[in-house]
């Protein structure tokens, strides 16, 4: 199982959300704790005040301890919350008045300030304040303990209210953080997305260096990418150079072989030997052609990387080409009809490349046309495009697609004995692409092929 990498944005959002959730929980707990403590402190304050108020009403005397319970102290206990109130006053070991089962404090020294503690009493949790005073009874000191207790429903209600608000606050905080984290993730990933789009938009042949404004964090990636592009360029260039060199080095010896073979054929008395030598010459011719086309293709690829654009007059180019091919065509009784509009038709482009493309088209037409036929070589202008049409009565495409034929080293299944490298149409296609034009190849009505090379006018 291959681990698929999670989207950066998702990962970023999840991490930010996790942090936000954690912070929201911490916020909730903090608010709750603080509110709990505040509520308890409030209750303790009132309880302590009530306890002290009662202890101040303690009086000694000859008959024993008396206490005048202050009405307001109890009334005020009820004013904060409707909680149940209990009290107990002990003199010495005996309970003087109040609820004699109210739990006493565990600590002994409660003389100065009230102590507070929480116990279960009569089925409810109560908060108890206790304070101790010494009273003289018959001139002897008696320790009196005053306890005031209150149930904690009011405090719980306050804490619950605060908890609900804290929960709402936490949720709101989380929602806000979620929204902000989404925005933050989007904004911080924008440069990456922009870079990805810029690289994606490039054509297959575009090997320019990436020169896009990027954040510092992405610079290593850019320089790595550019290094990679540089290596790719160098590699391609080396390959093309190598092919061109190889083709050149093969062509020269092949020319020598051919010259020698022709001499040998002429001098040979035997018809059988001459036939063999003729076959040899044809094979040599085919190899030589292939080498030539390889050289041309390498040139095209090389040049289309750094296209030299100049105005090229297509009418002149086509006239020159027809002049070049005229002798070969006449040898086989093939008529070449040139059909040009008046005046110059200029496109911007690389003259050698355009010439190579048109040469290939014409060469194909002548090669595959039977004797005594007509090849139409036509130039038209329409919609800002110049279109060169080469129509013959040759063997047609035999059902193979143009895409197939434009591949390197692929020849038509009906090419038969005609010499060819399978590179010609590839070159035409690449030249068309490099100039922003199109190349189409179609069967012609009544037999033959119609090739169209369309180029934007300058």
């Amino acid at each position, binding site marked *: 199982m291959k681990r698929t990498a999670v989207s950066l944005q998702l990962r970023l959002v999840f991490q930010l959300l996790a942090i936000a959730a954690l912070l929201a929980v911490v916020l909730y707990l903090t608010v709750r704790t603080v509110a709990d403590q505040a509520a308890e402190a409030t209750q303790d304050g009132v309880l302590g005040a009530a306890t002290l108020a009662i202890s101040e009403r303690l009086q000694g005397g000859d008959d024993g301890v008396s206490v005048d*319970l202050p*009405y307001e102290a109890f009334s005020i*206990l009820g004013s904060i919350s409707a909680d149940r*109130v209990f009290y107990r006053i002990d003199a010495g070991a005996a309970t*003087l*008045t109040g609820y004699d089962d109210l739990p006493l404090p565990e600590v002994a020294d409660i003389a100065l300030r009230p102590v507070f503690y929480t116990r279960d009493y009569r089925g409810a949790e109560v908060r108890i304040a206790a304070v101790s005073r010494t009273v003289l009874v018959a001139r002897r000191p008696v320790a009196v303990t005053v306890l005031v207790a209150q149930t904690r429903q009011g405090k719980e209600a306050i804490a619950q209210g605060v908890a609900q608000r804290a929960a709402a606050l936490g949720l709101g905080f989380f929602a806000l953080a979620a929204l902000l984290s989404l925005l933050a993730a989007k904004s911080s990933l924008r440069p990456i997305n922009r870079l990805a789009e810029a690289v994606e938009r490039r054509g297959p042949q575009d090997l320019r260096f990436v020169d896009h404004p990027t954040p510092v964090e992405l610079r290593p990636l850019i320089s790595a990418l550019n290094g990679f592009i540089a290596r790719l360029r160098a590699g391609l260039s080396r390959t093309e150079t190598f092919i061109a060199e190889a083709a050149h080095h093969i062509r020269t010896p092949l020319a020598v072989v051919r010259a020698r073979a022709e001499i040998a054929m002429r001098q040979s008395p035997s018809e059988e030997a001459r036939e063999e030598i003729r076959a040899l010459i044809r094979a040599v011719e085919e190899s030589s052609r292939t080498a030539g086309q390889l050289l041309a293709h390498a040139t095209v690829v090389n040049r289309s990387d750094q296209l030299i654009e100049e105005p090229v007059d297509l009418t002149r180019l086509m006239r020159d080409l027809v002049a070049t091919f005229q002798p070969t065509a006449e040898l086989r009784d093939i008529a070449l009809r040139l059909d040009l509009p008046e005046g110059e038709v200029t496109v911007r482009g690389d003259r050698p490349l355009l010439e190579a493309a048109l040469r290939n088209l014409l060469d194909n037409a002548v090669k595959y046309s039977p004797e005594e036929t007509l090849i139409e070589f036509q130039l038209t202008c329409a919609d800002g495009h110049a279109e060169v049409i080469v129509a013959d009565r040759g063997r047609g495409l035999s059902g193979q697609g143009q895409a197939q034929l434009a591949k390197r080293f692929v020849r038509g299944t009906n090419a038969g004995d005609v010499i060819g490298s399978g590179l010609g149409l590839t070159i035409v296609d690449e030249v068309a692409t490099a100039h922003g034009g199109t190349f189409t190849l179609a069967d012609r009505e009544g037999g033959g092929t119609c090739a169209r090379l369309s180029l934007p006018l300058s």
Partner: protein
Amino acid sequence: MRAAFPAPVLTLAVMALFLWCAAAAAFEVEEERLFPAPDGGGREVSILSTTDTSVLGPVVEAYQRRHPGIAVRYTVASSQEVFAAIADEGRSFDLVISSAMDLQMKLANDGLARAHRSARTDAVPPWARWQDNLYAFAQENVVLLISRKALGPLPLPQTRRDLIELLRENTALFRGRVGTYDPALSGAGYLFATQDSRQSDSFWRLAEVMGSLAPRFYTATNEMIDDIKTGKLVLAYNILGSYAGPRLAGDPDVAIVELQDYTLTLLRTAIIPATSKAPDLGGEFLDFLLGPEGKAAIRDEAGLPLIDAAALAAHPYLRPMRLDPGLLVFLDRLKRRDFLDEWNSALMRN
């Protein structure tokens, strides 16, 4: 675990013994009446109340018109006996109605009341309730009754200061003809006297003046009203206006005075005791008291004033006794002893 007497059994035995003892030392019932279910239904709600059957009986009947399947057992006792029945004897009732706010408060505070909430109880204003236990359904002013006939041309007192002056200057008229509650025996009287003592110092001066006039002490409002109608009393202090009003209606001889320095307002309250065997019925009756039909019956048939914040606002001299733990203070053993000592020294001088 196989013990000869498992703890629960022992506990039950002790409890049974305790209950038997409690039943033996029964609280004193003044009146008990069963209102049978109009359509012969099987359930019964038992109400323990300080309010006479003659007053609240019509309200019970109104309740039965709404709930004809329920029988009502209505038991009347004094406020202290009512408290003792629940707090000391643990008797089972489904609703306890009492005018002794302090004792009701103590029942609720000590956890002897059962919480009850409904849409009806939620509508009770906060000052007329305590927690979810104690709900007031009537507010009654504590008034002064004076015989106009006996007073003759003397002006009616408007404040306690007026009253003290009146008593001091006409000792011959008032001697032996001033009546009030005996706080040692009457729960309501104790509540009124203690609340009076909180309100102002003039109360103790009034007590001393009354003490010098050989006052009569009562345990029930009705007896005081009877005696003032017959002329045995000239003045009755701290009477529940809600009782006096209907009985003295159309009697021009007796004036009902709400003193302008302050007039205490009592809240008649109800709780559902924790000992209730049918708390749902107790709650239902309580909801009825607080609902529109119950209110109408209380106002029109029982003649008790309803809980009404507007009435308090319109009469600023009215001082409703607050339902808060302060009410517990005078129930304290020492505080009660000290208060009654002081009362006796002020009023029982001769």
